[in-house]
């Protein structure tokens, strides 16, 4: 398979904060430095993009030295937390802005879908907007004409074709917009999280269409989403970004696993002390990492509070890798009530026995209700149910679903 996209050392710096004040004098200063052949003093090297830390300069590297290659026909999911640089990467690929350093080489036409309905004019009819939007996305008029019926068919808005789109329902609007984009004749399709709109039926239709695009038509797709389920469904490759750096790339499954581990490690458990509210602190949380099905999960939970009777409710929560809540373990009872005296520490050392979860990655956290607030603290840890049953036999394929129930006859 030939390479469709090759990124070499791409970085992107952004200036933080206000632009207006002092811009002119800074510009003159920078121009003066460049004029003398010195390095731009405002691009300080070495600052990473961690939004939780306070940086020294007001330049931040949204992407840093990214290298990758993408083969033709691959569907690649770009994964990372908010602010990891995913959108910046898509912006560079779709040529909305240019990298600060490095280069991206591309074979074929790129069509980007960072937003549906870019350039739709509310006063124009559906028909007129199909042509306008198609042209904005880089299609020639005759190409649009050729695929016009397909587009209308896919969007399912035939009756409203000659109505201004300002009278469309938001669902119809999105359907039409996506339909135009999905029928682009480009070799590479770059898609941001645009599928968060529309009803479930249309969403699966879009995913199906994008699957066709990569598998059936041999086009390359780059896809950013927070929804791991759709990434898994659509992509065969993944790229994991963390604070503007590429930390892993490979097949989707392993990248998603890596991401989930990362997000758990990064989420405060390393600090051990998580403030729940002003009176309550989660001091410790521990969990068994890998078990087989129907084995037990051991956990330790330590909460301290300087108010009597502060903790009203406490539950252990397990979620699937796609963020669906799978089960809840009620921890109320003598643990909470009896030890909840003034300045007391609640320590629960427990075991979940006969865990009936199917193989896969899960994350664990707690739900807590105090006199001040109710909140989920997720994820505190990630564990894996290994792909074998209690007798050590491997399942031949990955099962979908989350729970298996033992049968007695």
């Amino acid at each position, binding site marked *: *398979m*030939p*390479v469709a996209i*090759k990124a070499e050392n791409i970085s992107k710096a*952004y*200036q933080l904060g206000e*632009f207006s004040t002092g*811009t*002119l004098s800074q*510009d003159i200063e920078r121009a003066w430095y460049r004029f003398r052949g010195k390095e731009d003093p405002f691009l300080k090297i070495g600052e990473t993009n961690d939004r939780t830390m306070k940086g020294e300069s007001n330049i931040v590297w949204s992407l840093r030295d990214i*290298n*990758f*290659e*993408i*083969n033709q026909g*691959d569907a*690649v999911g770009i994964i990372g937390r908010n602010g990891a640089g995913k959108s910046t990467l898509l*912006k560079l690929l*779709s*040529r*909305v*802005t*240019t*990298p*600060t*350093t*490095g*280069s*991206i*080489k*591309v*074979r*074929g*036409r*790129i069509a*980007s879908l*960072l*937003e549906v309905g*870019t*350039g739709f*004019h509310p*006063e*124009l009819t559906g028909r*007129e907007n199909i*042509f*306008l939007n198609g*042209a*904005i*996305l*880089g*299609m*020639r*008029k005759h190409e649009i004409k050729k695929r016009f019926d397909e587009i209308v068919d896919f969007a399912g808005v035939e009756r409203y074709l000659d109505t*201004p789109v300002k009278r469309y329902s938001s669902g119809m609007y999105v359907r039409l917009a996506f339909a135009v984009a999905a029928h682009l004749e480009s070799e590479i399709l770059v898609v941001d999280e645009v599928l968060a709109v529309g009803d479930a039926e249309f969403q699966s239709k879009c995913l199906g269409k994008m699957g066709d695009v990569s598998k059936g038509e041999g086009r390359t797709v780059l896809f950013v989403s927070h929804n791991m389920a759709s990434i898994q469904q659509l992509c065969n*490759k993944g*790229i994991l970004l963390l604070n503007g*750096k590429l930390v*892993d*790339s*490979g097949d989707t499954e392993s990248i998603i696993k890596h991401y989930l581990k990362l997000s758990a490690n990064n989420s405060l458990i390393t600090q051990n002390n998580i403030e729940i509210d002003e009176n309550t602190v989660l001091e410790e949380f521990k969990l068994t990492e890998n078990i087989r099905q129907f084995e037990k999960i051991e956990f330790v939970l330590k909460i301290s509070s300087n108010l009597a009777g502060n903790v009203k409710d406490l539950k252990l929560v397990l979620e699937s890798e796609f963020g669906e809540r799978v089960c809840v373990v009620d921890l109320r009872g003598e643990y909470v009530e009896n030890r909840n005296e003034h300045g007391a520490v609640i320590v629960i050392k427990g075991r979940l026995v006969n865990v009936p979860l199917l193989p896969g990655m899960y994350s664990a956290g707690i739900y807590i209700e105090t006199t001040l607030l109710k909140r989920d603290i997720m994820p505190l840890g990630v564990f894996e149910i290994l792909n074998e049953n209690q007798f050590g036999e491997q399942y031949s394929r990955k099962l979908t679903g989350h729970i298996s129930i033992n049968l007695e006859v």
Partner: protein
Amino acid sequence: MTEILTEKVVAEENWDLEIRPQNSLFNLHLRDVWQYRDLLLLLVRRDFVAFYKQTIFGPLWFFIQPIFTTIIFTFVFGRMAGISTEGVPPPLFYLTGTVAWNYFSECLTKTSTVFRDNASIFGKVYFPRLIMPLSIVISNLVKFSVQFLLFLLMLAWYKVDGLILNTNYYILLFPVIILLMAMQGLGWGLIVTALTTKYRDLAFLVAFGVQLIMYATPVIYPLSSVPEKHRYLIELNPLTGLIETFRHGFLGTGQFYGQAFGYSIIMSVIVFIAGLIIFNKVEKNFVDTV
């Protein structure tokens, strides 16, 4: 960390596109612009359709603005101030100036906000940015044609009425004048819009500056009525030669100021090229600053 997604393929180095930090200042992507010519036409069409949708008079509105401007100019500058119109009926004199001036000023004011007005589109999808200002110039050209028709109608009406005009061969320069005005409107507009991505102040300056410049251009008065001593000031305005020649060709007023016209040509070309280069430089990263 350098990890390669799949086994590296020794690919032949024929890439279709290379995205780099700083392209050459003079690479204007004109081939791209040509590729997107359908978009240019669709945008022009959009401007029109959107303009007269849900109006009663529709395209008639294009007539109304110059007619009222002419009436007011006739009243204020013709009757009250009594400024010379070189023997031509004041309404005809003012309409000529207004129609020509409007084309330039609309090109300038509309292109000067291109980045700001289209920030949301430019931030989401790539197409040659130059398409947008070009579509503005062409939209305005269509609008100008409609208004020019009004001017021709008025001219014909006066002729039928028995007015003798000194229409002469300089009328043949008409297409050149329009082209030069488009180049200047576009050029200045591109410079302003490029600078306003960082310095918003300029947008305010343009909004009333254009009105002031009209008075520094022989639109409502002939160049000949300007006192000798100050005439060079008006002649420094690169639009002076164009408006004067336009009126001279059609109405036979004044004379052909060869020097002013030559100066206008040179300035138009300079402004146009400078605008293209500055716009091209800013276009690539303006999304980060706007």
